[in-house]
């Protein structure tokens, strides 16, 4: 018998002795048994497993909601047609980056239908004809406190677009846009790994597209730490706040 058990027994006996005590009646004598120690362990295990799976499996999908892009756009097709990325994603004269093209760009070619694709028909009837901008959902949109210079990264840093955006130019379809229900930001910012882990900073998400084919589509994370990590690596400094913040 261990010391603890001795004490437990002593307590139990003590309680029994005070039979007059109103509460003592509720306390049943406890007999030591070999299985006894399993009770807390089992309870612990149950608690652990249930919440462990809650955190890893159940909550993550609940945290995110999904939306479809307004038009199923094929980057691959357009890259083939246009020849390069700069036709649509270009630097403006003031050094700012155009980002997602405005309707104007699309209308340059799609004023009239070029093919039979229903998605193209949608573009023309729903957006180009009424002159309404396409409400694209931006996977890489950063919070408003962030300043990001494409010029600094692409022109000066000579970084490839795919490092952040993944080989999106090879995609045939747009993937669904997932966003955090609480923050409303794209899932791409936190990364698709719920733990926010990323291999070497830039692991790519593998996801099945509509054709069922497994494709590498997108870079994983775009949080501040990721920026800082790369800046440290490339520039040897985390930089001052007012480099990436505004």
């Amino acid at each position, binding site marked *: 018998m261990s010391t603890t058990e001795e004490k437990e027994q002593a307590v139990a006996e003590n309680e029994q002795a005070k039979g007059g005590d109103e509460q003592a009646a*509720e306390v049943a004598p406890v007999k030591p048994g070999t299985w006894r120690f399993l009770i*807390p362990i089992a309870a*612990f295990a149950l608690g*652990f497993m249930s*919440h*462990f799976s809650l955190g890893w499996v159940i909550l993550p999908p609940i945290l995110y909601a999904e939306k479809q892009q307004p038009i199923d756009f094929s980057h691959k097709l357009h890259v083939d047609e246009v020849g390069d990325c700069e036709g649509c994603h270009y630097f403006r004269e003031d050094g700012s980056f155009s980002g997602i093209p405005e309707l104007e760009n699309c209308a340059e070619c799609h004023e009239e239908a070029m093919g039979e694709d229903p998605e193209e028909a949608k573009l023309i009837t729903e957006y180009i004809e009424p002159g309404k901008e396409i409400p694209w959902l931006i996977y890489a949109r950063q919070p*408003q406190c962030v300043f990001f210079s494409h010029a600094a990264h692409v022109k000066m840093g000579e970084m490839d677009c795919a490092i952040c955006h993944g080989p999106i130019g090879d995609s045939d379809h747009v993937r669904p846009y997932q966003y955090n229900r609480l*923050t409303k930001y794209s899932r791409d910012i936190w990364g698709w790994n719920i*733990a926010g882990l990323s291999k070497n900073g830039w692991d790519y998400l593998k996801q099945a597209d509509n054709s069922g084919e497994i494709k590498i589509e997108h870079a994983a994370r775009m949080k501040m730490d990721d920026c800082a990590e790369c800046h440290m690596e490339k520039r040897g400094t985390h930089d001052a706040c007012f480099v990436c913040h505004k």
Partner: protein
Amino acid sequence: MKLDRRTFIELIVGFSAGAGGGFMATPVNWKLMDDMTIWSQELWPRYQLGGLKGSLPQQGKVTHADSVCNLCPGGCGITVRKVGDRATKIEGREGYPVNDGGICPLGAAGLQLLYGPWRIPSPLKRIGKRGSGNFEKISWDEAINEVVQKLGNLRQKGQSHTVACILGSDEGTVPRLFDRFLTAYGSPNFIRTASAEDTYELALGLMQGTTGSVGYDLERANFILSFGSGLIEGWGSPVRVIQAHSTWRSGDLKDRATVVQIEPRLSNTAAKADNWHPINPGTEAALALGLAHVIIKESLYNADFIGKHTFGFEDWSDSSGKTYMGFKRLVRTEYTPEAVAKITGLPAKKILTLARAFAKAKRPLAVWGRGKGTVSGSLYECMTVHALNALTGNINKPGGVSARPQVATRSWPEVERDATALSGSRRPRIDGAGSNRYPLTRYLPDRWSQVMNGGKAGAIQALLVHGADPYFTTLDSAAVAKAFDAIPFVVSFSTCLDETAYHADLILPNHHYLERWEDLPTPVGLQKPILGMLRPVVSPQFDTRHAGDVLMTIAKSMGGSVASAFPWDDYETLLKETMGDKWGSLEAAGYIVNEGYKPSAWSKAFGTPSGKFEFYITAFDQAGVKIGKDVGYLPHYEPVQPEGNPATYPLILIPTELMRLADGAVGNPPFCTKTLEETELKKNDLFVEVNPKTAADYGLSEGHHAMLETAKGKAKVLVHLFEGIMPGVIGIPKGLGHAAYDDYLAGKGVNANSLIGVVEDPVTGLSAAWGVRAKLTRV
């Protein structure tokens, strides 16, 4: 197994520990913490920003559009920074001939007026009692029909002359359209709101025989003597004058210009001046003459100019042999420094020093126009100051003063008037301008309401107001309100719900100044002719229409000769036609400036009967002005008595004008109100400035509430003790006391105009009031 207490506790503790441990071993907890933080960052933008699409100010393509600002008569060039289709910032336009990159607080806050909740979203028709602010939205067709019908009826009844227009300007295509409309319709009652221009134009006309507004070559002057002009507080074209001020303050100390301010209060201008001479309010003319006395006595005047190009300086006799007193004799006898010292309160010694410094300066310049120049002022006072410029030969010279013409544009075809129009136009004006009593004056903006209240209540049956807020800016607010009440039909073309619009029957909202085309003639006080072009920087935000188009539609709907007076398709066509060959450069550059413009040489400059600069105004007799006494033909000091009995109202109240507080036709935007000092506005109460000595007499201390009372009204104010104001004088800021607009402006302070009445200038009929008698009691 029985669930005893121990087991129970073990289960609970075990499970909880497991649950805690298990959950801690998942990323969700720190993920949630992070998400919650981002949520706290975005909590505000998402839920409070409302108007913006999405949660953030949207990024987009940045463009810049040049235009011109017309929020005040300054006419600065502006550059609007746009992101996508949103205007996000107004900046001064670099290289613009008026302001070269600088901007004033009002101009910089212009977008608050564009996107503000005070915009009028569509034509509105009054449904409640006038002044209750109850309007209903109506369509443009209904609105225009309403005007056409009302005006048509009046015209049919032969009452076309009872229609009046009040505008902020009489130059440029839109004011001219209104004028043309009245001409074709049959009314003489085109009224321009008050400004110092009214008087200066007359003074120039009389003394120099010129038309056109005054132009000051401030930049090149090196001794600036200001008679109460708030040079750096919104006087003239504000940015331009401030830039001139900086020129005076540049370079080596010894080479810098000298600025002397004459004013009973230490205004910002006075504070920045090299010398500030507080004098008894209203005695500026006496001081000017005192200075003239010294200059003449010590022969410091420009003998060449005086000798060859002036008339009435020396005594003279007419063909009949009658001798008339010249300016020289008047000044020598009446305005000795000692006499002037007595009137002004400025020691004779200082008058002497000042006069010598002024006359001996290389390029001295005396400027006139109190505060921002928003009141007309006394004609003789203006003439005395202008006479100082003449004494130093400072007319049409670099660093001097001149009568400046406008950039010429194509004239419009003559209006062919029908009988109604002809008879209507010939009727006397409601305000009495141009009548036998005031033959010289073109508009009497402070007088029409007095006339109506004085027994001619039906004189105006319909009033159209554009680019002005007479309900707010006219002196003696109670009289104006009463007159308004008597007008059955008031139409406002305002973009914002200003006081006049608020009291109108119908509002036909014009495009905001950043949404429309309009030409803007030379800004006030500029020495060279400039023509600026307002252009649409953003598309109209509301269901508004260009006032020019609306007016033409009204005219066309009326048919007959009224319609045929407007042969243009729309305003834009008219504008292009009017600009003629200048349109190309106007469209490209946004402005035209006559850089090479030089005022005429002295020999050719004066269109007076004598062909010279006249100290003795011969034009008075020609125009049929009844002058009465001989001295009346000369610039002299004629005290303008402030209204009120000195026994009841022992103090003198003067309005003060602040750069950060718009007091004209445009309400102060929130950004500007935010810049007001703590000693100017506190919650909804404004401060009046009182000298501590005066305050002590009335038992008042800093921050006390007091009742300010004049013959015109009373108001509860806060007291700010200010050593910079003369004892016995109280200063009240102009521009507060709006009831219209919205919560960002309405209900703050009192309107200074409600406390100050009109004192008619005997010659011009314009208001010469510079203040009013008042009393201050602690409450």
